[in-house]
């Protein structure tokens, strides 16, 4: 048996064990969904506020409909790229790269509103 064959055998064993572990984890790892309760009675108002903030602060870079421009596309990508809403809030608050931090120019409620708008507003 060549070295390559031995290596292939070892890798197969490792991947096999990893596969079985992954299958077990699918059924045993804490799978309770994160508590996200965006649909409050004031949710429409939140989206309206977010829409206004987006138009004023974000549309210049990300496009009027989130189609992208100087900044990356947001429409249809935000939830995929940031499944955890806290990550998106942190990004808007602290900024990253060319994205400015909004901690000093927007209140916490305004950041939540604009984040909600990017995630839940009808495209």
């Amino acid at each position, binding site marked *: 048996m*060549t070295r*390559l*064959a031995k*290596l*292939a055998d070892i*890798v*197969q064993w*490792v*991947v096999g064990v*990893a*596969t079985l572990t*992954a299958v077990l*984890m*699918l059924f045993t*790892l*804490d*799978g*309770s*969904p*994160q508590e*996200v309760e965006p649909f409050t009675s004031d949710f429409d108002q939140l989206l309206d506020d977010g829409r206004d903030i987006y138009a004023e602060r974000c549309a210049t870079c990300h496009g009027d409909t989130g189609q*992208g*421009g100087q900044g*990356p*596309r947001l429409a*249809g*990508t935000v939830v*995929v*790229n*940031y*499944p*955890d809403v806290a*990550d998106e809030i942190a990004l808007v608050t602290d900024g*990253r790269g060319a994205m400015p931090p909004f901690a000093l120019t927007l209140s916490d409620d305004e950041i939540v509103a604009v984040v909600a708008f990017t995630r839940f507003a009808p495209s």
Partner: protein
Amino acid sequence: MSGRSTAFVAPIGAGALTALALGVYSSSHDPTGRDFVLAGFESTASWKSALASIALALFVTQLSLGLRITGRIGPRRPAPAWAPDLHRLVSTLAFGLSLPVVFHCLWALGYEGGADRVGFHSLLGCVAYGAYVANALSERVGGRPPGAVPLGGAFVAIAMLATWWTSALVHYAGTAA
């Protein structure tokens, strides 16, 4: 059932069951929406896209090696003796690298039906891994028709490409815009 029928039915049946199991699990399991970011990456989507891209390159390499081994591409002389082992190694590495990606898709995001990108991605992911299982098993079953394994390998590579196209490529296109 004849040996030739078994050679066809058993791997394809196992592949179909795998695809079905993935679909059923991801549909019935409540997606956790949990994120885990690997060191050196900005987001879940970025490491998933990177691993998926490397895995896709390996799947294509695996297909090329398979076609070379069976004499369908390359020079007329037989493939080097080490080619089958490298083929097996590359295939296993590709599958192994894709495992964390699939795990996160199944556990955190779940299956989404529909005729949009996410719906197609969900379906293609299940089909791709079912095809992988069917093809891997068919290599171990005797009496298979000639050309079945290369054809299956091509199907796996195309299904993986389509799965990558509807996820990682969209991510890169989105972040590059």
